[in-house]
């Protein structure tokens, strides 16, 4: 078995695709039409295009418990998942300039520095740098 896919629930697939590629800088790998106007969209990191893929899945719109869970995490400020960056401060500035909203500014905890932003599709996301 291999780990290849990280699933992220999004409230709007097209909006998510734009945010994750244009602002965050991921690259679209797969885009297949699915039943009901949905798509199988996966993204990879620019620096590791043979690495794991992110799946932008429209769960919250079709399965109520998924929406409830997503909203609860959002309200509590808990990130859905996290991405590694080389420098949290630089990435924070870059994203801030692109209009991305942060709920946690770059913060150090132990051996990690992290920040949390809103992905505009229902999730908090965390960027992390190992110190």
């Amino acid at each position, binding site marked *: 078995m291999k780990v290849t896919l990280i699933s992220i629930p999004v409230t709007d697939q097209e909006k998510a695709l734009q945010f994750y590629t244009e602002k965050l800088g991921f690259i679209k790998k797969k885009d297949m039409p699915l039943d009901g106007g949905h798509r199988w969209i996966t993204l990879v990191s620019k620096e590791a295009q043979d690495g794991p893929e992110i799946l932008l899945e429209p769960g919250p719109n079709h399965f109520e418990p998924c929406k409830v869970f997503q909203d609860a995490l959002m*309200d*509590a*400020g*808990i*990130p859905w998942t996290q991405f590694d960056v080389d420098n949290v401060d630089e990435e924070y500035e870059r994203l801030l300039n692109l209009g991305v909203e942060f*709920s*946690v500014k770059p*913060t150090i*905890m*132990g*051996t990690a520095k992290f920040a*949390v932003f809103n992905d505009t599709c229902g999730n*908090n996301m965390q960027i992390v740098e*190992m*110190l």
Partner: protein
Amino acid sequence: MTFYEREIERIRNNSFSNEKQLEVVIATKNFIDTNFDQKLNLDFLSYKHFTSKYHLLRLFKKYYGQTPRQYLIDKRIEKSKDQLKTDATVTQVCFAVGFESLGSFSSLFKNKVGKSPSDYKKEQLSRSD
């Protein structure tokens, strides 16, 4: 303040309040990051930070979740992947990232990446065409 921020604050106070320990492990990790291509061992790393080697081993594992050796090997493999994308040969890359034998580099690489360094190199070259 969100639930998450309060939890971060609480965990920081409970688990990450020993500044001196953090200083030592972060310095050790940064030293590995910049000297991964050198011959490194625990004796040397602990000597540098005036700690006993078993204490350093325990601390590093506590704060990074892996031993300094595991971290060093991962770092070398990561760097070798970058270098295999260049013109350098597998043997050159092996020594450039600090491994001392081609055999151990090849088998570690295969274990961690899932293919041999030469196969990985071929794949990267065909991709850039």
